[in-house]
């Protein structure tokens, strides 16, 4: 196995970018641990790519500092930042062979010839393209080009590796294969990775932590599990997978607070008064027929408005007063409900999450 790299620590301090009157990114604060795999996730125009471009040096921040290993690199020219990068659409040099492409960063960093040859071969072997060194990029398939781009970015073992939607041009099957490959390479190499994507599944599958962006600002930073289970606002919860949202109010109740609707009340820890939403993930909800009496938790009356078979489960679209969303049945055999039927939604109170509306960002449009 090859030598491990010491991953770099990356810190963004109050980074912002203004294009004329347009704010592309603002108040971006982030600390990335050495060796961490972190994703910047958000819809297009959310500021994730602008942030990446500022780390790379392609854009100059309008304010704030960027530090790598405690060293301020904000004013360091691009080529002396010691960063590796995989571009969207690969950006392979079309006039150089695969080998020359991979060798390019090694040459720029002053490696001598035998060392370059060794590192090039090693990088190409890592992406299983050792036999393709003499080809031109145009002679390769999309997936192969992607792997060359990856090999080129890791060839000189940069302590920090940036990836800008590297898989967006590939079809689903290839994408999943390459995700595994990227994870393996990250593990082998130990480098710090900052990965930009608009695909939440991809972010979930790859990352140690995810930074969710919307409208130029960070919405939440956390592990995939934290974000999914405890989204800090409606945008994050909606962007990270499907959910049901129910409108209500938080009221003071004795010494604590309660989330209140006409049909149920739930005690909550949230110290807040006013409009709020209750969020539940689809797999946490159970559908029962309206006549059923077995109720262990809160219930809400709803109508089934659509039904889709997805592999081994059934997805129901439900609508109820003050909300709605998607419910996923656990098995296909729960196929008892028809479109238009009145049903009850029920769930374990502990599985739902209450989000005060005042603190949530402006309603994010999902992309």
């Amino acid at each position, binding site marked *: 196995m090859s030598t491990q790299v010491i991953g770099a620590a990356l810190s963004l301090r109050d980074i912002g970018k203004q294009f004329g009157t347009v704010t592309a990114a603002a108040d971006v604060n982030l600390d990335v641990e050495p060796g961490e795999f972190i994703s910047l996730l958000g819809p297009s125009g959310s500021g994730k790519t602008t942030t990446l471009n500022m780390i790379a040096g392609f854009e100059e921040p309008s304010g704030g500092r960027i530090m790598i290993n405690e060293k301020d690199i904000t004013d360091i020219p691009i*080529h002396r930042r010691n960063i590796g990068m995989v571009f969207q659409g690969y950006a392979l040099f079309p006039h150089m062979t695969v080998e020359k492409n991979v060798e390019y960063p090694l040459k720029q960093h002053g490696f001598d010839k035998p060392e370059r040859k060794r590192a090039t071969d090693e990088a190409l072997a890592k992406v299983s393209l050792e036999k393709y060194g003499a080809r031109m990029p145009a002679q390769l398939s999309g997936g192969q080009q992607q792997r060359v781009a990856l090999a080129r970015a890791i060839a000189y073992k940069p302590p920090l590796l940036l990836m800008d939607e590297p898989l967006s041009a590939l079809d689903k099957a290839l994408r999943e294969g390459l995700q595994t490959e990227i994870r393996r390479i990250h593990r082998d190499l130990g480098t710090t990775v900052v990965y930009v994507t608009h695909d939440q599944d991809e972010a979930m599958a790859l990352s140690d932590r995810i930074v969710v962006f919307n409208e130029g600002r960070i919405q939440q930073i956390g592990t995939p599990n934290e974000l999914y289970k405890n989204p800090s606002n409606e945008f994050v919860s909606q962007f990270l997978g499907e959910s049901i949202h129910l409108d209500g109010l938080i009221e003071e109740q004795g010494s604590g607070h309660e989330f209140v609707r006409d049909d149920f009340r739930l005690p909550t820890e949230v110290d807040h008064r006013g409009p709020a939403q209750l969020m539940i993930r689809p797999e946490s909800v159970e559908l029962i027929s309206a006549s059923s009496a077995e109720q262990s938790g809160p219930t809400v009356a709803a109508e089934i408005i659509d039904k889709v078979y997805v592999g081994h489960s059934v997805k129901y679209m439900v609508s109820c007063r003050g909300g709605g969303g998607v419910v996923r049945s656990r098995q296909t055999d729960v196929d008892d409900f028809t479109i238009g039927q009145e049903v009850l939604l029920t769930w374990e109170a502990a599985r739902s999450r209450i989000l005060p509306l005042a603190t949530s960002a402006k309603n994010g449009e999902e992309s």
Partner: protein
Amino acid sequence: MSTKQSRTAVLAWPALLLVALGFIVPVAIILVMSVTDPQPGTQNFEWLATNSTAHDIMWRTIYIAVLATLITAVLAYPFAYLMATSSTLVRSILMVVVLLPFWTSMMVRAFAWIIILQKNGLLNTVLGAFGIEPLTILGTNTAVLIGMCQILMPFMVLPMVSVMVGIDSRLPLAARIMGAPKWKAFLQVYFPLSLPGVFAGSLIVFILSLGFYVTPALLGSPRQQLIPNALFTQVLELLSWGKGGALAVATLVMVGAVFLLLFLVAKVMGIKIGKIGGGL
């Protein structure tokens, strides 16, 4: 299918016929005259091969054409680069700057250069104001080159721009993040990728500069003739159609040789030369 196609193809015949009879035939006539006038034989090519004046004229023509191509390429490259890397609005404005003179009379432009470059012209008036001795430019190869390159610029700029706008703007950035300083990223990535445009432009410019008549006749010296001017003199003043024909053959051989050379270079370098006529 094919009969339907040939029926529509009839529409192209009048133009093809006009070019064939009105252009190809006359050109063929003068080429043929090189071996038939004043009597059948190779005497005109013997003259071309042995006469020192003819040698001078041919070498001078090649020399001027090479210089014109180099100068135009050097001046056109930054201009094309700016066009290719600017916003659409700026690019359109610069395009008009290139295209307007393209369609402005060659005669008028030669005349304007005479006014500027002559003994008591604009240039020497300005230089005189700074106490600099008047320069003799009109009637020299320098004047010919100044005038030619100005006319040739669009033919160099347009093919360059059409190649440059096709270069992925992130490629130089990719080189930079991999450790290349600005000048290296340009030299190792952008420049090689722009070469097909440089070659296409140079090909057109070189070929066109072999055929310049008006500019050398008006800005150059009669003692420093180029092939087109010599051809003119041979036929209209000396009534030596055969020698004129031989000069025409020599010009077309050069044109063909340049095409071939460029084709080979492009092949070796693995460059695809797009539509050469595209820039026109």
